[in-house]
């Protein structure tokens, strides 16, 4: 078994794997956050394993299993998807266990100390938008989850790669040829999937929180120029709760956090087909707004 550690503030993960594709991709994607010389007595937040399924499966259609402290939240996937199952497993681990943050399923990007969160369902183009902005002067805090300190508007970075799917894979490689990408996990339940490494700048600032000033629900629509719909606070609240991972687990503190956050943010739903127009809108109407 290979064993390595990922220091991804605010969490430390120790990972064991017997699939070379997992360690190779993790080393490639996470750079200096990846280490192999481990002291098993060190405190870490989570001990994860990605391993071959046993028995004859190992030789006939090999599969990869993900385990978090010996629990297995997902069914095994094809072995070529082993790195993707690690990334999704880390998402699951944090979303299922962390109660000191209000966690929203959302991308988070910032300029200076001002952040916008982008809650969105699969297929909305969230990750493609995230990849574009993260390479256009915005700081990536997360592609997947906003970790909000309870009773504040502060979002904590959890800097991880951007997960791109299907047609977005070719676009991202064309737009950002110098970026680091994982191997492609083909034919997952989301289609073909690749992970694009966060920038050096994002990693260097991965302990620097930001104040949430905007909540934007993006929806890519090839036939639409930029359409902007201001959202009232009540509708923003209900959509945000719908995208919260741990709202009910945290309870009253979570409710207080979200309503107070929404009282302070600018809230929009946007339909777009031009990423540069979105960038200009976000900067002018939310980040630079008084």
């Amino acid at each position, binding site marked *: 078994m290979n064993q390595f550690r990922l220091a991804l503030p605010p969490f430390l993960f120790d990972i064991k794997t017997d699939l070379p594709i997992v360690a190779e991709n993790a080393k490639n994607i996470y750079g200096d956050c990846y280490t192999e010389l481990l002291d098993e007595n060190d405190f870490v937040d989570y001990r994860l394993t990605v391993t071959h399924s046993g028995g004859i499966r190992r030789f006939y259609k090999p599969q990869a299993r993900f385990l978090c402290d010996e629990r297995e939240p997902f069914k095994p996937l094809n072995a070529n998807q082993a790195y993707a199952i690690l990334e999704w497993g880390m998402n699951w681990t944090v979303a299922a266990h962390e109660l000191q943050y209000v966690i929203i399923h959302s991308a988070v990007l910032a300029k200076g100390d001002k952040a916008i969160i982008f809650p969105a369902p699969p297929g909305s183009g969230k990750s493609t938008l995230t990849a574009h902005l993260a390479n256009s002067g915005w700081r990536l805090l997360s592609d997947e989850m906003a970790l909000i300190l309870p009773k504040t508007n502060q979002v904590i970075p959890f800097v991880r790669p951007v997960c791109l799917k299907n047609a977005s894979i070719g676009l991202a490689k064309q737009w950002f040829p110098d970026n680091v990408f994982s191997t492609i996990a083909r034919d997952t339940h989301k289609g073909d999937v690749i992970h694009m490494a966060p920038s050096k700048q994002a990693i260097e600032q991965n302990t620097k929180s930001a104040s949430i000033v905007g909540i934007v629900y993006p929806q890519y629509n090839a036939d639409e120029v930029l359409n902007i719909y201001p959202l*009232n*606070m*009540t*509708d923003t609240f*209900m959509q945000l709760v719908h995208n919260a991972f741990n709202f009910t687990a945290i*309870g009253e503190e979570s*409710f*207080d956090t979200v309503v107070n956050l*929404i009282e302070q943010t600018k809230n929009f739903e946007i339909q777009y087909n031009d990423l540069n127009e979105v960038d200009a809108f976000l900067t002018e109407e939310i980040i630079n707004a008084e």
Partner: protein
Amino acid sequence: MPKSYQISKGMQVHPFSDQSGVTFFNTLTTVVSSVNVPLSTFEEWLNNPSDLDDKQTDVLTKLLDQGFITDKF
């Protein structure tokens, strides 16, 4: 329909400052709900439920079923 309703004990209520609505949090069940009217309008609904149209009555009935409001006697 009873004469009037009141917000149940133990409910968190937040009227948003943009007057877009009121949101409710049941601290016992952790269920969340909202109505898209200002607090003053919602209070009128609670006090005079017999004046409401069918759609507004459905909203109150749902809040009643979820335990956010109770009969006021």
